[in-house]
């Protein structure tokens, strides 16, 4: 929104499903090393925006730029290669794996060996697998799941599955982490632990963009907030600015009079 080129930005993003316009001319701008929240009532288009960013949906128009390059037309796996990894609002845990294997799968891109190495079990295969394992265990203890590594992932309680998704995403070494409603379904204690965790993630040099409904969490940890309503950007600013914005208050609480 300032003149300088931003780290991660979107411009003119429009997405239609038949007659329904899910996103209309959406723009946003995120600075490196910050926490940026996308808020708005249900159906405002927040998750659709994440799906456009990660290449799961192709927008009708508009571009997303990250670290100086356009992401337009990239398939999801190429977006991940560019350094953008996400979590899902409705958990997408690999239920046919253990907790550790989930995180190892997240490390897919950082595993530096090919078919020759794994079919013939070269020293490189063993070296890389050992390194991945150590990294995965480190990510598990980073999110507080170090004791659950060998459990089947499906057996974890809901709140732990949320943490597992974050650990799995971090194992991919993202430069930008997209969290889709990370606090949904968490209790107050878990939510405040999540806030701490997000601060620790930013301290590692990862930029965080999150869709979130929990306003206490949003106002507490966000550097900037973009408000969406009916697929359009309603407001953009610091948490304090957004909270004072009459249009935002109206969208959330309804008009006075």
């Amino acid at each position, binding site marked *: 929104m300032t003149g300088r080129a931003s780290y991660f930005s979107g411009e003119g993003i429009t997405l239609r499903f038949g007659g329904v316009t899910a996103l209309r001319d959406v723009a946003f701008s995120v600075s490196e090393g910050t926490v940026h929240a996308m808020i708005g009532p249900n159906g405002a288009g927040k998750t659709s925006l994440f799906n456009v960013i990660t290449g799961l949906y192709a927008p009708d128009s508009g571009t997303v730029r990250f670290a100086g390059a356009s992401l337009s037309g990239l398939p999801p796996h190429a977006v991940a290669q560019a350094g953008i990894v996400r979590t899902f609002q409705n958990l997408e845990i690999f239920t046919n794996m253990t907790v550790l294997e989930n995180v190892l*799968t997240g490390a*897919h*891109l950082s595993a530096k060996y090919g078919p020759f190495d794994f079919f013939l079990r070269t020293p490189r295969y063993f070296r890389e697998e050992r390194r991945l394992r150590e990294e995965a265990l480190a990510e598990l203890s980073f999110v507080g799941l170090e004791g659950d590594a060998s459990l089947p992932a499906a057996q974890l309680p809901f709140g732990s599955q949320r943490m597992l998704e974050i650990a799995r995403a971090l194992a991919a070494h993202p430069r930008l982490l997209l969290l889709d409603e990370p606090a949904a379904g968490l209790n107050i204690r878990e939510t405040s632990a999540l806030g701490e965790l997000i601060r620790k993630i930013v301290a590692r040099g990862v930029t965080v963009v999150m869709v979130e409904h929990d306003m206490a969490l949003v106002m507490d940890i966000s550097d900037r907030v973009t408000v969406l309503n009916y697929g359009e950007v309603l407001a953009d600013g610091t948490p304090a600015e957004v909270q004072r914005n009459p249009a935002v208050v109206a969208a959330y609480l309804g008009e006075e009079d």
Partner: protein
Amino acid sequence: MSSIRETSSAPGLALFAAAIVAAPFLLPDYYQSVLIVAGLFAILSMGLNLLMGYAGQISLGHAAFYGLSAYASGILTTTFHWPVPAGIAAGVVLSGVTAALIGIPTLKLKGHYLAMGTLGFGVIVYIVFNEAVALTAGPSGLTGIPRLSAFGKIFSTDREYYFVVWGTVFLLFVLARNLVRSRMGRALRAIHTSESAASVLGIDVARYKAFVFVLSAVYAGIAGALYAHFVTFISPGSFSFHASTQVVTMVVLGGMASLWGAVAGAVFLTVLPEWLRAIEDYDILVYGAILVLTMRFLPGGLAEGVERVLSALASIFRGKAKASGGEGKKP
């Protein structure tokens, strides 16, 4: 469950090798030819299990890849007098290349649609085997295919052929296990559960699906070529839709996402009809009942049973040493 299975394969492999070597000396000679067929089906079901059990993609046309290679190698060695190893290599390559061409459009389909697509492919190939009489000799079958020979040695006895087939089974088992325990194995299992979650982690879903489809066709191709040079006579009936469903049954009954299960399912369903011959009029009834009861009491397939037996054996060998030190287990 899978992690337990993945961790205990070193003693399992040794046991497997020992069983392969011992079987022909312990069983009546007649069983050698039964076990050769079982080994060919084991190769087929291991390949299909990589595709179906691990990556979650159904194929109801796998007999086509089995047949393509059998016919290619059969025709090249019989009509065109190629050496048998060259014929086998050509057959396997044909199966793999066909899978790549078929897989790229077909694997965009999901669930029932993928099942229908692969079924259609299997039916088309079956019709070609029947109708391309000039090449395949049509429904009456291709005769006079030479037995396998390589490096001046002809594998003419069943015992020799048994070791060729089960040596191949063992090799392909180890390769498949190595794949399953790699980043690619994890990627395939991820695709099975959630393609979108896999893709946003950087897994190229389309490429991995195509790779495993081709690999499973290559397994089927190896089995097909070995089949042709074992029976020396092939006809379309061996590669019909029925054969495709038989392999699917072996995978499911043996245990999805288990290589042990694939082998166990293939051996079980090949040997069972031999035992049931004694009660000829009722064999189909008993066969069906055994299938139903197995799935009822071992929903994880025979792999569950094999796993229990193996872990029981392993704990006997280890004595009182508590089951510790496995990979993936850190209490």
